[in-house]
């Protein structure tokens, strides 16, 4: 977002993410506003934003493996479950503090992700997508049939605390979740423009050509799965400690499909796209939640509680519309807007 006539005068400026003092001002005031938000936001908005931020973290991970590295993964919900359960088991059964369990759960999910991503070394495209669906079901089955994960009852992780201060409400968790989200976004934004990120894009665009150019495909695919599942694990851990109950019901295949839908609508291969996609899907869902009782009253055929089914229909229709008319997602629209703003008084 730069107005017409602002140019980069050095290489350092050209590769910077934040280029002008206006950007700094906007960024800093936005961050201050974000962290002051619990003081005046309503409970509903705050818990909704927590949910959004956790979805953004999962979405960022999926963006790295699917959007940048081109390996479509339907297993994100399962890796989130691994993170949530790891964190819960570590805090409940082994008495770890949340602050140690959080990174450990990310690493645990990442390590399982490397195993889960192993099929990607031989297969790709929708074969891999099916393999990740299989991994999802195997992981959830293991969780349901293991002693340590509390089987069908699930686990009840305690809220985190720091020096006697308990983060036991949504408003208090808001600070932890937002801090983690900002750090994770910054890390993702930087990762994808580093050597690693370029290797991912090479694999996505043409893996054979990438291999010929000297990209170690096995290494980078495993790395992509590790990073992606690390994000999912962190998000899962936050989620578990936010709502203080973890069970397999929260991590169904439908959740994993939702994240892929967010990427399609937001735009594959774009970090802002994750934010657009998450906002679009979650707000669409809330709208359906609010309007479905009215619809049910107006059209008795729909039955008493059509919210879940109508949500599916709305989600599917949105996906169809985006796939046909804007396959590059909202992020592409945003790029077009930025480009035209940069040229503003002139036509081109």
């Amino acid at each position, binding site marked *: 977002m730069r107005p017409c006539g602002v140019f980069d005068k050095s290489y350092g400026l050209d590769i910077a993410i934040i280029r002008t003092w206006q950007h700094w001002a906007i960024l800093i005031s936005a961050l201050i506003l974000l962290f002051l938000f619990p003081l005046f936001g309503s409970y509903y908005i705050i818990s909704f934003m927590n949910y959004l931020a956790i979805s953004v973290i999962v979405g960022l991970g999926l963006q790295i493996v699917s959007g940048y590295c081109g390996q479509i993964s339907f297993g994100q919900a399962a890796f989130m479950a691994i993170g949530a359960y790891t964190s819960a088991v570590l805090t409940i059964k082994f008495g770890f503090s949340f602050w140690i369990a959080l990174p450990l759960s990310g690493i645990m999910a990442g390590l399982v992700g490397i195993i889960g991503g192993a099929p990607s070394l031989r297969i790709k495209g929708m074969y891999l997508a099916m*393999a990740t669906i299989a991994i999802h079901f195997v992981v959830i*089955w293991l969780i349901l049939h293991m002693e340590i994960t509390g089987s069908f009852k699930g686990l009840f992780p305690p809220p985190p605390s720091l020096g006697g201060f308990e983060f036991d409400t949504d408003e208090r968790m808001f600070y932890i979740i937002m801090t983690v989200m900002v750090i994770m976004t910054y890390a993702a934004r930087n990762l994808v423009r580093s050597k690693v990120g370029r290797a991912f894009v090479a694999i996505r665009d043409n893996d054979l050509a990438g291999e010929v150019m000297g990209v170690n495909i096995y290494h980078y695919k495993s790395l992509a799965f590790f990073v992606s599942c690390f994000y999912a694990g962190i998000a899962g851990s936050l989620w578990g400690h936010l709502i203080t109950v973890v069970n397999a019901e929260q991590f169904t295949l439908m959740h994993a499909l939702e994240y892929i839908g967010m990427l399609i609508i937001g735009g594959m291969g774009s970090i802002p796209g994750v934010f657009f996609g998450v906002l679009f899907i979650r707000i669409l869902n809330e709208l359906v939640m609010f309007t479905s009782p009215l619809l049910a009253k107006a059209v008795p055929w729909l*039955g008493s509680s059509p919210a879940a089914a109508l949500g599916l229909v709305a989600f599917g229709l949105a996906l169809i519309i985006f796939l046909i008319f804007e396959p590059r997602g909202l992020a592409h629209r945003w790029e077009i807007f930025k480009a035209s703003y940069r040229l503003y008084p002139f036509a081109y």
Partner: protein
Amino acid sequence: MIEFLQQAITGMMIGSLYALVAAAIVLVYKATHVVSLAHGQLVAFGALFFWLFIGGLGLPFWVGIFPAFILTALIGLLIERLTLRPLIGQPLIAAFLMTFAIFLVLEGVFVLYLKGETRTLPAFLPEGNLDISGISVPINQLIGFLAALFLFAALSLIFKYTKIGLGMRATAEDHRLAQGTGITVRNIFSYIWVLSAIVAVVAGIATANVMDIYYMLPYIGISGLIVAICGGLDSLLGALVVGLLLGVVENVGAAYLDPLVGGGVKDVAAYVVLLLVLLIRPYGLFGLVRIERI
């Protein structure tokens, strides 16, 4: 031994359902190279339409089955015309994701219609069990099984000997070359979706014959997809063989492993098989190995 055979035969009967669903998916893949996630819903809608005419309106079997065919074929045609045709020329993964979107929409409509209830087909096939030296086979399931075998034979013959089947195979090989020899590729796409929807209706009726129509029914599409991939996506024979095998593995595995691990083997066996097959033979047991070029 008798018990093992009994479990295997029961599994085979279920497996023939998987094979039918897989056949519908393989048909679409053979001509268009699109892998469909939405076929479970086509199966469910086929069963539902059949129920509407047989159970709801009380029509006799041979009258009720045709409107079910026509309505489901219409859904298949609409899917092809409205959602997949605009994607011609885009990467195949876009079409795969499109079928996933269709999966969501149809799933939503299906759940909306059922509202958490179940529908049971009235018995339209002879009841009773066939007893072969200690192994009992329900006659209605046996009829479904034989119908599946018959359908597979018919499909193979269509692909091998008819002109339209030849056109479909040519289209699968190369769209432009097929167009060059005078085949209307767009029509082939429509035909294949109609044919595939008809197979899905047969699968749906055979499935509803064994279990109730309820909200989990569309998930047989995932089992069908697993079978199609394990058998090799372009092989009807693979779909049949692996479908029957998967039914046997699930049933026998559940019978012998459930006591050891505490139940639930049936839910996960298919996924473990899929992972193993993908790791050992990524193109499926009967699939054509394709060599990639840059």
